[in-house]
């Protein structure tokens, strides 16, 4: 593999389990994907599918009773799972940043937003207080906060939800990270504000060539933002492809089901097909294919044998026995 093709991030067979009193919960169970420089990856799935645990694992933010029990996370060729806490702290917020769903709880209410941005800058860059402040104000302007000099001294509660999320983005991008992980960044916001924030993220990623992992349950958001899509179900990747192919030729019955269950506002007539049953509880996963109890196309085999990830047509990777014939080589 040549230098140019080396991905920025490569996750190999990541396994994060939670050791609870009721038994071991395999929240992330063998997840592999990679992110190239400047690329935006969308990880989609419903609650409990392991998408957030995946993102927290990347930053080594899993706490007891959870533990990364296997796999590698290669960032610029370096395995993050082997780093010490101290070494990780140099990467977090610096080379890899994260924005969370709820911008009110992720900002400290007793510090001004300016001091919170400056803190991140001074922690990772060799600058003095004044320079940090200047940089922070530049960042606030960049994310579209009006009267940035004044708002530098504002406390988080004075800002609206959309403005707070802009501050979070300013903090996340203040150290020019190579990778930005956005976990449901707009779920708590109104749609009109969501559109603004997404546009901002797009512009900034183009400007800085930042790679983005966007984690969401909203397929619309993925269609809008991502270059490649990873669909997760019950702790595993069930389908992975580039965004155009995935939406044009969805292969896994779960992906198809998800697409059919969103109301389409750009079509006048539409009929919603729902996926029967419920999302399984991670501690009570079925045998065989994890999706088979809800799958209309399930075969006898699906009840006993967990399918591997097959290489299918149109560049897709699909975890489904129905696509077994399309194997090009595993």
């Amino acid at each position: 593999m040549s230098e140019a093709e080396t991905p920025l991030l490569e996750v190999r067979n990541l396994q994060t389990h939670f050791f609870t009193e009721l038994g071991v919960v395999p929240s992330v169970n063998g997840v592999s994907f990679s992110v190239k420089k400047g690329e935006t990856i969308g990880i989609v799935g419903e609650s409990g599918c392991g998408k957030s645990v995946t993102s927290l694992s990347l930053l080594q933010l899993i706490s007891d009773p959870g533990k990364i029990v296997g796999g590698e996370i290669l960032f610029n060729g370096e395995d993050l799972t082997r780093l010490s806490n101290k070494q990780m702290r140099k990467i977090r917020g610096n080379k890899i940043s994260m924005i969370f769903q709820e911008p009110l709880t992720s900002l400290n209410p007793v510090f001004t937003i300016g001091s919170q941005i400056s803190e991140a800058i001074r922690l990772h860059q060799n600058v003095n207080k004044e320079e940090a402040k200047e940089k922070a104000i530049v960042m606030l302007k960049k994310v579209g906060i009006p009267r940035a000099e004044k708002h530098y001294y504002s406390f988080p509660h004075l800002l609206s939800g959309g403005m707070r999320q802009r501050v979070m983005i300013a903090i996340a991008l203040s150290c020019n990270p190579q990778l930005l992980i956005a976990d449901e960044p707009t779920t708590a916001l109104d749609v009109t504000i969501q559109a603004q924030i997404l546009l901002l993220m797009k512009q900034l990623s183009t400007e800085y060539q930042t790679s983005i992992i966007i984690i969401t349950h909203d397929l619309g958001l993925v269609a809008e933002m991502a270059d490649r899509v990873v669909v997760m179900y019950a702790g595993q990747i069930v389908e992975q492809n580039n965004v155009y192919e995935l939406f044009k030729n969805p292969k896994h019955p779960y992906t198809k089901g998800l697409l059919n269950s969103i109301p389409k506002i750009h079509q006048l007539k539409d009929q919603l097909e729902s996926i029967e049953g419920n999302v399984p509880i991670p501690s009570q996963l079925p045998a065989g294919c994890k999706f088979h109890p809800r799958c209309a196309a399930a075969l006898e085999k699906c009840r006993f044998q967990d399918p591997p990830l097959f290489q299918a047509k149109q560049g897709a990777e699909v975890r489904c026995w129905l696509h077994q014939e399309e194997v090009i080589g595993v």
Partner: protein
Amino acid sequence: MTMTNETETNHDCLLRIEGLKKYFPIPSGLFGKSKQFLKAVDGVDLFVKKGETLGIVGESGCGKSTTGNTILRLLEPTEGKIVFEGKDITRLSERGMQKIRKDIQMVFQDPFSSLNPRMRVFDIIAEPLRTHKAAKGRVLEEKIFELMETVGLDRSFVRRYPHEFSGGQRQRIGIARALALKPKLIICDEPVSALDVSIQAQILNLLLELQKKFNLTYIFIAHGIPAVKYISDRIAVMYMGEVVELAGKEELFSHTMHPYTSGLISAVPLPDPTLRERNNRILLEEDFPDQTNLPKGCRFYSRCPFRKDKCKEEKPLFREVRKEHVVSCHYPIIQ
């Protein structure tokens, strides 16, 4: 106003609200002697025909939920009139209201907090029937099994507690409870917002199915345009306590007239990556007016991409611009 007058004689009209206002006092000044009000709902005129679904859509804080709660008199209206089946229920006593609440039921957003965690499914669904002395003993039991079946719950679940169910199943319990008294109108306040995507479709389809089966009328309140579009016959768009546009679903989407509606629709991310470069999007700015000190002109002025001087000075009237399509905008978008 023309709209409501027209329906006055219409026998199909199940519920009508006129000039509905709900102001919340904001404690301020010495000893909290408040002079300021938050105008959550500020002069709303709407009607709902028998058997239809009226969708109410808008962003958080637009007054859509307050409208729903005021109709049921869970909140006392500050001003205005609520007429249900031709009867003015605005000043009805609590006892009188209890009879009306048999006919108007509600399904709430959060299926986690709207079900009593200490009650079993049986008692949750039985509660309205017991309160209104509609059934007891064997009859009550049969009735509950029947309701559970109607909403797609297995009757073996009857002794379970809410925490043993997933979000979608809990919402089914909430719907069964709402159906128990055979209501005429169900107000659904964000019934699918807290649910997973694959479960949302199940619940929306269940609501449609039940509507057909029992000839129900719905008011469907939500912030998400897609769900509202899927389920509604007519849609009212609310902004800052007022209805700014109201039309039949197809009319509203094919001839969107208010810039706010247009912005709301185009902000929804479409599940089709080939449309991501669409250039006809209207992006709304984030500049909300102060809700306790609303501008004298159009309330949407500060965010409107098409604002003109007149909009700042003069409040637009709610007027019928196309047939059965009302909008409050000085310069509606004409396609």
